C-alpha cells in the first residue's frame, strides 16, 4: 500500500496538571505550567509509526499548530519515529481563539499539498474537549472518516476501522484516502529512546504560516468568559453501612 500519513499533534497543558482559571476570567493559567503532547495525539503518532513499521505507510509527516514551543511537540513525534515535521506558526495569544474550524482547514490544505493518503489525528484535545477536528477535516476533503478508532487494519484497497461508540464497538469499511482519529485503546504509545531523541534533532521541521496555505484564522467563536465550575459542598464521612443507609434514606432514597 505504501501510504503517506499526515499526523496532527497539539501541545496542551499536561493531563496531570490541576488547571487554574485566570483572574481575568478569559482563560486558564498557562505560564510556567507543564505542557506536553495531547495524549490522544501520542496515540495517533504511535499508530502512524507502526503503520510505517508494518510497511503500510511509507512516510509519516507530523504537523502542529502553535507558537514556537510547538516545535518541542513536533520533536517528540519525530523521536517516536515520524520522518519530518511541519510547524504552522500561530502566535501564543491567538491560541485561545484558534478553533477546530481553522485547524481543519489548515490540515486539509496541507493534506492536499503533501498528497497525503491518511490524515491521523487524536480524537479530541484534552484542553478544549471539542472532538471536531478530524470530522471537519474529512468533510473539507470530502474523505471518509474513521473517528474514535480503536483498531485500524488494511482491507482490500481501503481500511477496516473498529470504532468505540456509545453501546460498544462499531466496525466500518472506509475508502482511501481517509481521515482517522485515535481513541484511547488504539495502541499504547512508545517512549522515545535517547538515541531516537538525538536522531530527531537532525530531522527537518518546515515552518509555514496559515496565510501561506490560504487559511484565514480570524476567530469564529468568541470566548465570553472562563469560570470555575460550581463547587460541591464538602461531604461527611460515615462510620459504617448502617449510617450510610440512614443518611441515604434521609435524602429520600428508599430501597
Amino acid at each position: 500500500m505504501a501510504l503517506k500519513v499526515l499526523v496532527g499533534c497539539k501541545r496542551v497543558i499536561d493531563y496531570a496538571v490541576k488547571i487554574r482559571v485566570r483572574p481575568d476570567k478569559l482563560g486558564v493559567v498557562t505560564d510556567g505550567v507543564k505542557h506536553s503532547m495531547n495524549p490522544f495525539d501520542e496515540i495517533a503518532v504511535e499508530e502512524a509509526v507502526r503503520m510505517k513499521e508494518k510497511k503500510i505507510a511509507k512516510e509519516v509527516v507530523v504537523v502542529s499548530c502553535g507558537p514556537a514551543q510547538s516545535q518541542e511537540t513536533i520533536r517528540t513525534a519525530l523521536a517516536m519515529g515520524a520522518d519530518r515535521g511541519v510547524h504552522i506558526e500561530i502566535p501564543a495569544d491567538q491560541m485561545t481563539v484558534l478553533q477546530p474550524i481553522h485547524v481543519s482547514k489548515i490540515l486539509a490544505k496541507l493534506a492536499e499539498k503533501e498528497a497525503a493518503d491518511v490524515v491521523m489525528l487524536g480524537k479530541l484535545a484534552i484542553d478544549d474537549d471539542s472532538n471536531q477536528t478530524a470530522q471537519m477535516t474529512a468533510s473539507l476533503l470530502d474523505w471518509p472518516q474513521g473517528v474514535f478508532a480503536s483498531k485500524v487494519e488494511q482491507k482490500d484497497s481501503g481500511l477496516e476501522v473498529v470504532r468505540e461508540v456509545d453501546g460498544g464497538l462499531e466496525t466500518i469499511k472506509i475508502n482511501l484516502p481517509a481521515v482517522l482519529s485515535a481513541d484511547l485503546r488504539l495502541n499504547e504509545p512508545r517512549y522515545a529512546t535517547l538515541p531516537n531523541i538525538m536522531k530527531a534533532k537532525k530531522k527537518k521541521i518546515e515552518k509555514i504560516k496559515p496565510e501561506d496555505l490560504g487559511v484565514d484564522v480570524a476567530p469564529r467563536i468568541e470566548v465570553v468568559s472562563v469560570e470555575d465550575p460550581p463547587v460541591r459542598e464538602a461531604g461527611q464521612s460515615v462510620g459504617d453501612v448502617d449510617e450510610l443507609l440512614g443518611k441515604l434514606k434521609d435524602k429520600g432514597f428508599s430501597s
Partner: protein
Amino acid sequence: MTDLEKRKSKEFMTMFLPRATIARRLAAFQSRRQASTVVLIEHRGDSGINQGSLAAITAARTLNQDLHFVVPSASKELPSNIAKQITGLAPAAVHLAVHSSFARPPVPETLAPFLQDAIKATDASHVFAAHSAFGKSVMPRVAAALDVAPISDILSITPDGQTFERAIYAGNAICTVKSNDSVKLITVRTTAFDKASSTDGASDSKVSVIDGSPDEITTFEKEELQKSDRPDLATAKVVIGGGRALKSSENFEMLNTLAGKLNAAVGASRAAVDAGYVDNSLQIGQTGKIIAPELYIAIGISGAIQHLAGMKDSKVIVAINKDADAPIFQIADYGLVGDLFKLIPELTEKV
C-alpha cells in the same frame, strides 16, 4: 443623480405607498427573518427515540422558532417504532432522510448531505443533536461543509440562541462562548437538559422526504453492543462505579448483584477498564461517558480528575474506599472508609 440622492428619493416615495402595500412588505420581511430550528433525531428499534435526542429537543425548544425534525429512515415512511412518539412531540414538520443503508446504524458520511439539505430547505438558524457518538461524528462534518464552527457538548443556551456554556479541561472550567455564525450546529450534553416528553392527542405532523443519493464512501459492517440487563449507564437514576480495587471481572459481579437490588447501572473507572475487568463502554470519565444520576456510588475508585469529569454532576455521591486520602472523598457527599470486599456484601444484604 448620486446613489444617496436616489435612495433618499425612494424613501421619500415610500411615504406615499398605500398602507396595504406597506403592511404586506413588512409581513414578508418578518417571515423572511423567521428562521427555524432543526433537531437530528436518533432512534433505534424498540427503544424509540434516543434519550440524547430528547434532551436536544428540550434545548431546541428554548428558542421560539418552528421545530423541524430530521429522521433517518430506510423507507419513505416515518419509522413505526417512533411514529407515535414523534407526533406527540409536535414538531412543525418531519423531514425523512431516506436511504437503504439507514436500516442499520447510519454512517455520518451518508447522512451529512441529507442534513445539509434540510438545513437549507428549512432556513435553519440552529441545528441540534445529542452529543452522542453519532451526533459527535456527523455534526462537525456538516458544520465544515457549511463553513461554520460547531459548538459541542453544550450545558446551556440563552433564549436568544447566541450564547452557550460548555465544559473544558475535563470539566475543570466552564467556558461561555458566543457564536456569530448564521447557522449554529450544536451538540447537547444529555445530562444537562430535561428529556422532552410526548403528549397525547397531538395531530400528525407534516412528513416530507429529503431527496438524495449520496456516494457511499463508508459502509457499516457490524456492531458489537454490550448486552446487559442493567439500565442504560448514561440515563440510569442510580449508578455504581467500580475501580481497579475490584481486582477482577469476577469481583465486578459483586457490583452487579448490588446493582440488581438498587435497579442501578454499573460503570467503571478507566483503570478498571484498562485492566480488562469490564468492557470499554462502561467507562465513566472525560473520554468515556458523562453521567449525572441521582445517586452515584464510587467503589474502589480513587477519583482521578478524568473520572470526576464524568460523574461530578451526580446529585448525591457516595464513595467507598480503603484509602482515606483518596481524592474521591473530596467530592463525595458521604464517604465510607473501609474494605470494599467486606462493605459491599454488607451493603447488598442490608439495602
